[in-house]
């Protein structure tokens, strides 16, 4: 009986759903992005009355994409980059609501969102023009070597929450996508330079030109030298650094259907830290100021072909080489990656993207005084594939996106990361979205192979070494994320965005102290014992929070934006108690940021950034408020001068306490002046 009711219900439902779309008026056609030619042909055939009754927008494609997205997206625009006066990519991320950006010392950052912040915060995936800068050694990001010619950045798209379907593993808590301008947008020459108390000189030159009818190029070179921060007692922390970098980009459009991009960078630099690993003192190494040499380069090519108005594919490859050499750790790494993506419309309502990828990475990590990896050299393969289908249920009203990623890595084998997203647009200006996704953070080489000596002590004649030890059985960390959000973007002058989430994590990394074991590698020597602290998957956790952003254009010359985020984590241990860098007490519960851009008479600009970051209780870092002011002046069309004051409210403040064997330092007040000349 009940099954019969069900069947007839279903039949009725189908009948209803089949006719509803025809009954629905969709005058706005807001959601899907058909090519503009098709739109124009459609508009051309409308009557003049119909044209007059159309809803029209002046919102640009990027803004529209942001307003329409079914995820917690935030875009740092080139205007934000110019007007913030911030000179590095990690510092720019402070503008993103809910992003936890903390300076560990002069040349190191801890950056994460939705919890788990550390030097090697491992749940963010960072890409620059499609190239991953996530390191497979510690599964974090070397923020110090993530750089480019800052004025050439078109935008930075930040998606909070798992972006796993399209972006691959390790996009557990977010994806940061840095997109540089096309070469055609950077024609002409720009020279800039500046100097200040921390910015001990920086400068760059970029030139863009055109060869023939359809090949554009640009090339740049830049250098910066940044002075050290302060220790707690106000003395110099000696953590200064400098870096030089040069790169190019070429865009070639030989036909209306094909476009080719080739881009590359090389860099070299050095930075200083103090190492506070006890072994250095115990082994009598007095010089614990470590110099880190960095160098590297990358080359990326991409071919995009439009097959029809509704279908295209792209083929991308890159090669990346990096070297990081310090007394305590030396790493040489090479990566080759190739990706294919195909996008098409099918049966009117399906918008499908699928792709295949392969990555090979190989490294060389010789043993040092404190580090000893299981193998000096290792290479890893990563095979990945994904498919995503965006199904329009009611055009411009409701759509559902189903997708999954399937990948195979050398540590844990196959990983499946599905997601389902739903988007409802009751009107052009409003978007409701909700999503459930599963994502994983695959083991890093350190989780698997590392031996990090922490301390040596004697009991009788036996030498005991306390060490953090990797685990060959370490499994992926997993999350099921439930997200929902609402966005209201009625026009350019006002917008409102709220996103909430509830994440359930399983098998989070822990380090558990085990009883002493006899030597199991060449180290330590025979009459010694190893007391291992083993990396395991012992923690579960759930977290929830909310991020809100509002933008108001108070006047045609004054834009403001206010963001607030709140976050709570609850940690559960599976059974054994153990130390962990996770937890609720080392994240800022509340964060507030305020942006204000003013256009003043006589081509002056006054731009203000204000950040409030709550205390990190477990790390004993008090809450701080940071105020930045930039005064810009364009006396001529092609000349701009600016004065930037950072961290005006206090002499110095700590933002993070290092627990990774590297001395932390405090962020001082700073000022710099900059000149930019274009011709």
């Amino acid at each position, binding site marked *: 009986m009940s099954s019969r009711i069900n069947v007839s219900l279903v039949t009725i439902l189908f009948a209803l*759903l089949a006719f509803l779309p025809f009954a629905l008026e969709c005058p*706005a056609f807001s959601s*899907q992005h058909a090519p*503009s030619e*098709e739109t*124009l042909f459609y*508009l*051309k055939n409308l009557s003049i009355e119909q044209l007059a009754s159309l809803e029209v927008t002046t919102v640009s494609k990027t803004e529209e994409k942001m307003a329409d997205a079914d995820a917690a997206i935030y875009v740092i625009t080139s205007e934000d980059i110019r007007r913030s006066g911030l000179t590095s990519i990690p510092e720019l991320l402070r503008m993103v609501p809910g992003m936890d950006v903390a300076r560990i010392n002069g040349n190191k950052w801890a950056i994460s969102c939705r919890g788990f912040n550390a030097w090697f915060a491992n749940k963010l995936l960072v890409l620059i023009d499609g190239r991953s800068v996530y390191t497979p050694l510690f599964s974090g990001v070397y923020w110090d070597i993530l750089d480019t010619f800052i004025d050439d950045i078109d935008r930075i798209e930040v998606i909070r929450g798992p972006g796993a379907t399209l972006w691959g593993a390790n996009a557990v808590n977010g994806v940061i996508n840095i997109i540089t301008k096309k070469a055609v947008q950077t024609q002409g020459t720009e020279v800039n330079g500046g100097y200040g108390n921390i910015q001990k000189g920086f400068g760059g030159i970029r030139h863009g030109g055109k060869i023939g009818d359809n090949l554009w190029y640009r090339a740049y070179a830049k250098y910066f030298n940044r002075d050290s921060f302060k220790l707690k007692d106000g003395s110099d922390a000696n953590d200064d650094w400098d870096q030089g970098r040069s790169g190019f980009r070429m865009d070639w459009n030989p036909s209306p259907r094909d476009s080719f991009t080739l881009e590359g960078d090389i860099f070299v630099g050095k930075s200083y830290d103090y190492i506070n690993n006890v072994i250095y003192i115990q082994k009598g190494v007095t010089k614990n100021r470590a110099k880190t040499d960095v160098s590297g380069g990358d080359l990326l090519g991409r071919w995009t072909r439009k097959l029809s108005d509704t279908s295209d594919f792209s083929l991308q490859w890159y090669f990346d080489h990096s070297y990081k050499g310090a007394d305590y750790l030396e790493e040489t790494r090479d990566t080759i990656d190739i990706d294919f993506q195909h996008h098409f419309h099918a049966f*009117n309502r399906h918008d499908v993207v699928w792709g295949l990828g392969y990555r090979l990475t190989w490294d060389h990590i010789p043993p040092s005084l404190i580090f000893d990896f299981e193998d000096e050299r290792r290479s890893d393969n990563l095979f990945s594939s994904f498919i995503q289908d965006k199904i329009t249920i009611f055009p411009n009203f409701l759509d559902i996106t189903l997708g999954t990623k399937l990948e195979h890595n050398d540590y844990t084998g196959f990983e499946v990361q599905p997601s389902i997203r739903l988007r409802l647009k009751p009107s052009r200006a409003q978007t409701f979205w909700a999503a459930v996704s599963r994502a994983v953070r695959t083991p890093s080489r350190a989780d698997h192979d590392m031996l990090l000596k922490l301390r040596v002590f004697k009991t009788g004649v036996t030498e005991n070494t306390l060490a953090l030890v990797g685990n060959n059985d370490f499994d992926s960390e997993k999350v099921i994320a439930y997200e929902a959000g609402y966005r209201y973007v009625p*026009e350019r002058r006002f917008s409102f965005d709220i996103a909430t989430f509830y994440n359930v994590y399983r098998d989070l990394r822990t380090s558990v102290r085990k009883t002493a074991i006899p030597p199991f590698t060449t180290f330590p020597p025979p009459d010694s014992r190893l007391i291992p602290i083993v990396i395991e998957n012992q923690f579960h956790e759930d977290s929830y929070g909310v991020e809100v952003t509002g933008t108001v254009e108070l006047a045609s010359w004054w834009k403001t934006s206010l963001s607030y985020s709140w976050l709570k984590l609850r940690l559960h241990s599976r059974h054994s108690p153990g130390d962990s860098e996770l937890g609720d007490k080392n994240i800022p519960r509340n964060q507030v940021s305020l942006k204000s851009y003013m256009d003043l008479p006589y081509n002056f600009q006054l731009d203000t950034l204000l950040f409030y970051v709550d205390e990190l209780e477990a790390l004993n870092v008090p809450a701080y408020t940071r105020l930045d002011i930039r005064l810009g002046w364009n006396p001529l069309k092609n000349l701009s001068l600016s004065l930037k004051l950072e961290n005006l409210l206090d002499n110095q403040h700590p933002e993070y306490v290092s627990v990774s064997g590297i001395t932390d330092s405090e962020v001082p007040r700073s000022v710099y002046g900059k000149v930019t000349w274009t011709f």
Partner: protein
Amino acid sequence: MDFLTRMMTIAPKTPFTRGVICIFYILVLLGTFPCPRPCLAAFNLDQVEAAFIFNLTNFVRWPDQATQDRPFVIGVMGNPQVARNLQIIISGEKIKGREAVVKIIDDPSEIEDCDILFIGNSFKGNVDEILQLLRGHPVLTLGESEEFLKKGGMVAFIFTGKRIQIQVSVEAAQQEGISFNSKLLRIAKIYKPERQR
């Protein structure tokens, strides 16, 4: 539907699997229905303006439109995006029986050859001067603000934040012998210049 009913009855009996299969069918079926209308992208201001300009030619009479044997020229200043869109719209089209051409105009000396001149709001030069130069030439002048009509322009596309409203200055058009069809006048708002003195 018969097939569906059969599929449903042979499906496993647990409520969960039945639910999952149900959702699956709904999604797949919905996905294959034809869209009720072409699912087009959001309409940008510059797209709709370009369509308006093309459409407008049906409702305007030029004094000498029948006697011309040169192409019908639409000049665009201060809005290259509208020019690009117009180029796509008019390709292969005829206006008043003449081949249609879009010209991006940089130099004011070219404006007299136009039949229509669109001056976008981001035009940096002196609008008064351009309109002055066109005195005595039957060129339909289009702008994007009421200010434009005040200066002597003929038609303005005014973006109200939601829609495009057309305002026409019948008087300014009449001076050059240009007239508007009554259908256009019904849709448009008629601009009344403030009488001087």
